[in-house]
């Protein structure tokens, strides 16, 4: 759904048109849910935040003025709610775990990409993405799931574009090391040797 369609629906929502709100809701809820779930790993809480976020649209549809993609704007609202949720929680121990074993591995072993590309281990990718630090995980999600451009990622994360690039670089390193570690554990390929 493009911005012009969104703005038309928002105009109807301004007039308390519940049908228009349902249509908008269903068009964006899945992606929003995927984003929040990636950040929180808690389906019930993710559902709550999706509902809260879209309820804000119902309350104040005129707040969106079409200056960015609607989905980008929506993720910005959901992100604030995720941050509010995190303020009451302790840091996830998993993230420290990734940092720990990332340090134990060579940062750029030869053949690593070949191993990863050929192994096609989607379960491993999922596990390793989930173990990334929240900022890195969010960055990876926005780029590879949402398909956002660099400027949009920077806007959502409220950081300079250079920092987005840095986060992507480090996220890639951590993912690569995590996947190498998994492969080594399972004996599928020796670490650091091209297959």
């Amino acid at each position, binding site marked *: 759904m493009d911005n012009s369609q969104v703005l038309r629906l928002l105009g109807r929502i301004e007039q308390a048109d519940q049908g228009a*709100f349902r249509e908008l809701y*269903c068009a964006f809820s899945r992606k929003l849910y995927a984003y929040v779930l990636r950040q929180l790993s808690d389906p019930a809480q993710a559902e709550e935040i999706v*509902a809260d976020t879209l309820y804000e649209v119902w309350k104040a549809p005129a707040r969106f003025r079409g200056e960015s993609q609607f989905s980008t704007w929506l993720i910005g609202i959901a992100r604030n709610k995720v941050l509010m949720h995190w303020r009451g929680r302790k840091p996830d121990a998993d993230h420290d775990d990734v940092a720990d074993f990332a340090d134990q591995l060579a940062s750029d072993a030869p053949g690593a990409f070949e191993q990863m590309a050929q192994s096609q281990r989607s379960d491993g990718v999922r596990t390793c*993405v989930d173990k990334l630090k929240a900022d890195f995980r969010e960055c*990876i999600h926005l780029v*590879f799931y949402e398909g956002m451009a660099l400027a949009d990622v920077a806007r959502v994360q409220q950081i300079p574009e250079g920092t987005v690039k840095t986060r992507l670089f480090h996220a890639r390193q951590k993912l690569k090391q995590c996947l190498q570690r998994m492969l080594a554990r399972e004996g599928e390929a020796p670490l650091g040797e091209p297959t």
Partner: protein
Amino acid sequence: MKDRFDELLPFYVNDTLDETDRAWVDAYLREHPKSAAELQWYRTLQETMQRDAPAVSAEVGLDKVMARIRAESKPSRAPVRATPGIGERLREFFASITPQPLLKPALAGALAVVVVQGIVIANLATKPDDSSEIRAHRPTVVDPGPFLKVNFKADAREADIRMLLVEIEGTLAGGPGQLGDWYVRIPESRITAAADKVKASAIVDGVARVDALPARP
């Protein structure tokens, strides 16, 4: 060159690069065939993340929202009824946040104060009092400025006004006047930035700095 390739590659994969950068990456990949593995790795990552999207209904959470919508009353959103003015909506808001059980004791308390004050005033009026002239000239308490005098658009909603006040960390000092002027108190150190933010708001018709509130009639 490798650094630039590393920076551009994620956005090459998600297809958000402009033509120039895309052509640059294409050329780099031709010159460095081994880098194709990196490209493939990112593509695998993207495919995996797309494929792993949670299987959830598009109506996830919708029932909760619709229940909230049905539960709330939205007189200001009713299309037929004339919308109340900003003052009325703010009065309704402040009335809505007043705990109802407190109203009766508060009213009784206010009446008691009025009665006591009446007795004191009557007592004073019957006695000669040399200090009354001095008291009459005692300076009144003046709200410290500066203020922003703000005129909101006719269709500005109370929720948006409140949100704007929160954003600029301002406090409502007066208004609306006969011309729809609202006065918002802002610390001197932030007044310029606050004025710029208010001016940029879509619900504002005009904003001006004033150093004092208008004299009361």
